[in-house]
C-alpha cells in the first residue's frame, strides 16, 4: 500500500562539512541514514527519522541537524497534523497505535504553576555549605506515638523502615523493557547514592543480586521472575497494580525481545510473548489486595515494607486510603505523565490524572482520615528537576521516583520510540549490539551526577526556606503558592494564590 504519510522530520546534511565517514549510517537504528553505493555519498530516508539525535551527537564534523518538516497542512485547529497522521497510520496498518514514553500532550503541568518560598529578614535562610542539611528519609509505616519503658527503651514496635539518603529513587523499569546494562547503571548508581532502584516486573537478573540492599523488586500481574529468593533479596517488595502511562492496561513484551537471558530472568520460555494481564487475577477487590500484601509479608517474615503502586486515576484518594488500610507500608502514585516502554497511544494520552493533583488529594485524604503516618507516599510521573522534587515533597510526598529523567541522563532524547525495540541510544532495547551503547560504569556515573546535583539543589531550596530537614518541607504546603490557577485547582492542591 502506498503510504500517504509525509516525513515528519528533515535531516539536513551540510555538504561542506560532511566527510562521508558513515558514522550517521552506523549510528542510526531506524534506517534513516544510508550510504548510496552508486553515488558514493551519505543520504537520508527522512521518512524513517524519529529525531533521536543519535547521528547528530556522533557526527564528527557537526554536519547534521534535524528539523521538523516545514510542510504545512491547511490551517485547522481541529484537524491538526498529528490527528491526520494518526488516522493515516491506522488506515494503512490497522490495529492500535503503539507508542513509548509518557504523554506528550499539553495537559497542565501544575509544577510550573507552583512557586516555592524563601526566608527574608524575619527568619534567616540557612547556608547548606556551612550547616548540616538533612535529606535522609525513612520509608515505611510509622506508629502513631512512641512509648518507652521505665529504662528509656523503645517499647513501641516499629514496622520495617528503609532509609534512603536522598528522597529521589529510580522508577521501576523492567529487564526486557530496558537492557541489563541500563539496570546495572541504575543499580550501581542507587548503591553509590544510598537510594533505591526498582526491578520492574521483569525479575531480578542474577548479576544484579549484589545490589540487593538498594533494590526494590516488583510483583506485577504477570508474576514474572517471582520466586522465594526474589522476595528475600530486596529492601522493599512492590505490588504493581498500574502505571501512569497506561492505567488499567497490561503489558506485552514481544517474543523477539525474550532472549535466553530475559527468559531465564522472567522464568518464561524463550521467544514467547511476555503478557502481563491488565489486572492481577488474584486481586479483584481491596480485600484481595490485602491478602496478597499479607501473603508477601508472611513469606518474608514481616521484615520488609510492602509497597503498592497505582496509576493516578479519578478516585486515587479513596483507593489510596483503602490500600493503606489493606496494609500497604508505602504507596506509589504514578501520574499521567509517567512513561512506559510501550503503550497504546489512546491510553497513554487520554487516561489518568496529573500527579500533582493526585498526590495532593491523597496526602489530604490520608491526613483527614488520620492514617497518613501508616504509609509513606512516593510520587512519580513527570518529575523533571529538583524544583519538581521540592514541590512534590511540599505537596505531601515522602520521596519521588524518576524514570524518564534517569533515562535522559543515560542519553535518551525522548523520541518516544521505546516500543520499537530499536532505541538508538541502546536504552530501551534488547538488541545485543545496541545495548552495548550503554556502558554501565559511565551510565552509573551520569546517574549519580544527576541525582547528586538535584540533591544539592534541594538542599539549597530547603536552606533558602530556613529549614534544615526534609521533614519540615514534607506536606508543608504553606511553602507553596499558586500562579495562574483557578480556585478549585488551588483548593485541591491545598495552596494559596501567590501574593496572598
Amino acid at each position, binding site marked *: 500500500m502506498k503510504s500517504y504519510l509525509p516525513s515528519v522530520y528533515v535531516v539536513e546534511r551540510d555538504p561542506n562539512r560532511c566527510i562521508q565517514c558513515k558514522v550517521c549510517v552506523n549510528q542510526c537504528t531506524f534506517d534513516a541514514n544510508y550510504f548510496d553505493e552508486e553515488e558514493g555519498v551519505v543520504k537520508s530516508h527522512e521518512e524513517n527519522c524519529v529525531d533521536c539525535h543519535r547521528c547528530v551527537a556522533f557526527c564528527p564534523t557537526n554536519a547534521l541537524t534535524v528539523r521538523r518538516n516545514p510542510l504545512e497542512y491547511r490551517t485547522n485547529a481541529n484537524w491538526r497534523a498529528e490527528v491526520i497522521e494518526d488516522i493515516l497510520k491506522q488506515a494503512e496498518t490497522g490495529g492500535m497505535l503503539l507508542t513509548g514514553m509518557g504523554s506528550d500532550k499539553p495537559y497542565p503541568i501544575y509544577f510550573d504553576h507552583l512557586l516555592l518560598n524563601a526566608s527574608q529578614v*524575619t*527568619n534567616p535562610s540557612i547556608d547548606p555549605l556551612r550547616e548540616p542539611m538533612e535529606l535522609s528519609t525513612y520509608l515505611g509505616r510509622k506508629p502513631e506515638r512512641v512509648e*518507652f519503658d521505665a529504662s*528509656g527503651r523503645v517499647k513501641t514496635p516499629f514496622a520495617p523502615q528503609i532509609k534512603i539518603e536522598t528522597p529521589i529513587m529510580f522508577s521501576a523499569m523492567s529487564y526486557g523493557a530496558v537492557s541489563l546494562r541500563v539496570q546495572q547503571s541504575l543499580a550501581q548508581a542507587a548503591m553509590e547514592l544510598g537510594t533505591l532502584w526498582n526491578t520492574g516486573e521483569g525479575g531480578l537478573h542474577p548479576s544484579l543480586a549484589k545490589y540487593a540492599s538498594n533494590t526494590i523488586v516488583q510483583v506485577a500481574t504477570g508474576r514474572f521472575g517471582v520466586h522465594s529468593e526474589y522476595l528475600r533479596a530486596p529492601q522493599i517488595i512492590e505490588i504493581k497494580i498500574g502505571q501512569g502511562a497506561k492505567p488499567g492496561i497490561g503489558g506485552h513484551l514481544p517474543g523477539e525481545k525474550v532472549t535466553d537471558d530475559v527468559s531465564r530472568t522472567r522464568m518464561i520460555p524463550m521467544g514467547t510473548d511476555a503478557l502481563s494481564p491488565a489486572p492481577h487475577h488474584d486481586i479483584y477487590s481491596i480485600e484481595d489486595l490485602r491478602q496478597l500484601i499479607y501473603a508477601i509479608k508472611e513469606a518474608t517474615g514481616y521484615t520488609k515494607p510492602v509497597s503498592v503502586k497505582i496509576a493516578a486515576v479519578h478516585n486515587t484518594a479513596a483507593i489510596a486510603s483503602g490500600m493503606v488500610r489493606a496494609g500497604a507500608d508505602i504507596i506509589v502514585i504514578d501520574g499521567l505523565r509517567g512513561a512506559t516502554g510501550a503503550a497504546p497511544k489512546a491510553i497513554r494520552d487520554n487516561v489518568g490524572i496529573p500527579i500533582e493533583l493526585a498526590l495532593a488529594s491523597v496526602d489530604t485524604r490520608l491526613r483527614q482520615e488520620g492514617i497518613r503516618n501508616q504509609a509513606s507516599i512516593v510520587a512519580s510521573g513527570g518529575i523533571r528537576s529538583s524544583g519538581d522534587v521540592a514541590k512534590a515533597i511540599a505537596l505531601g510526598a515522602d520521596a519521588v521516583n524518576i524514570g524518564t529523567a534517569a533515562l535522559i541522563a543515560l542519553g535518551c532524547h525522548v523520541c518516544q520510540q521505546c516500543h520499537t525495540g530499536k532505541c538508538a541510544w541502546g536504552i530501551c532495547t534488547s538488541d545485543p549490539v545496541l545495548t552495548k551503547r550503554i556502558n554501565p560504569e559511565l551510565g552509573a556515573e551520569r546517574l549519580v551526577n544527576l541525582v547528586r546535583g538535584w540533591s544539592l539543589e534541594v538542599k539549597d531550596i530547603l536552606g533558602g526556606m530556613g529549614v534544615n530537614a526534609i521533614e519540615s518541607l514534607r506536606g508543608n504546603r504553606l511553602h507553596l503558592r499558586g500562579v495562574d490557577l483557578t480556585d478549585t485547582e488551588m483548593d485541591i492542591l491545598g495552596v494559596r494564590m501567590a501574593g496572598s
Partner: protein
Amino acid sequence: MRDLRLLNNRYGDDRVFDGCSIFGVMDTSGGLIGADVPIRAIDLMRDRDNGLGGGFAAYGLYPEHEDSYAFHIMYSSRAGQRETEEYLGEWFTIAEAEPMDVDPSALPNTPAMYRYFASPKANELRGGDTEQYVSDRTMKINTSIGDSFVFSSGKNMGVFKGVGHPFDVARFFRLEQYSGYIWTAHGRFPTNTPGWWGGAHPFGLLDWTVVHNGEISSYGINQRFLEQYGYQCSLQTDTEVITYAVDLLVRRHGLPIEVAAKALAPPFWSDMDQLCADEREMVTALRLTYGGLLLNGPFTIIIARKGEMVGLTDRIRLRPLVVGTQGNKVLLSSEESAMRLVCPDLDETWIPVGGEPVVARLGQVPTGGETWEGAEVFAGAH
C-alpha cells in the same frame, strides 16, 4: 468598625510571626518571687519589642484555689461574655467569678478581663480524663465562641497579656499584687499584624505556657501533623503550635520533657554516631514518628508548667538563650543583661547547646554542660 487590636491575623497571612524578648525565672525551692523581677528584666530588653505585645505567666498564683482550674478570659463584647459564661456554666461548677483587678488607663482600647475558678461537672465528666475535658472546652471557646479568648486554664497559675509594652501590660493588670515561684515574660515585635490581645504571649493551655522568640518555618506541616491528633490551630501562631506539640508529647503521649525536646529539636543524623546505642534508638524512633513536629527555623522557647520550667532553642540556635543560676534560682533570658539586672550575683551563666533543653524543676537546678541519662529521666516520669 472593629478594633483591629481585638482581631487576630487581620490580613489572613499564613500565620502570625514575630521577633521578641523572653525571660523566665524559677525558684526551685518553691519560694515566691515578686512580679517586679520579671517586669524589670523584660523591660530592660525594650528594644526587642515594639509595643505590640507583652505578657507574663505566673505559677503558684492562687494557692487558696489550687484545686480549681483558673480561667483567665478576655472579652471584647458583652455578647461574647454572655455566651462564654453560659457555656462555662453548662460544663463547669464555678466556685468564683470576678472581673480582674485592672487599670484601664494603662493601655488604650482594653478588653474586659475576667477570672473564674471552676471544676468540671462530675455528671458531664463521667469519669473521663479531666485535663482532656478542660482542654477540649477551652479549645471550643477559643475556636467557636466569638469575642472571647481564654488566656490560661490551668491550676494555681495564670497568664496576663495584652497589646502594649510589657511594662504597660504589667501596669494594666496591676501585676505587682501577684507573686509566684515561676515567672515567664515576653515582649513582642510582630512583623505582620498590628498585634492582637489573644495573640500576645505567653500562650497557655491547661497549665502549659509557652513564650517564644522566633519563626517556625515548618509551621505548615507542624499544624497539619497536629490536626491529625485533634488540635485545631485557630490562632495561626507559632506559639500555639508549640504549645499543642508539647501538650501532645508530654501530657497525652507521656514523654518526659527532655525526651519531647528530642522530638522538637532532634540531633542531626550525622551526630548520631556520637550517641550511645540506646539513645540512638530513642532519637530515631522519635524522629520517625514525630518528624512532622520537628520545629524548624529559628526559635527559643520557655515552656512552663506546674513545678517545671524548660528552655530550648532550635537545633542550630538561631535565636539567643542565656541561662543563669543563683542558689535555688534559675533564670532564662534572651540577653544576659536582663538576668544581671535582677540578680547581680549569679553563680553561673552559660549558653546552652542548640537543641539541648535546660530543665529547672522543683528541687532541681540545671548546671552548664550537663547531659541527661534516658533511664533517669524515665524513672522520674513513671
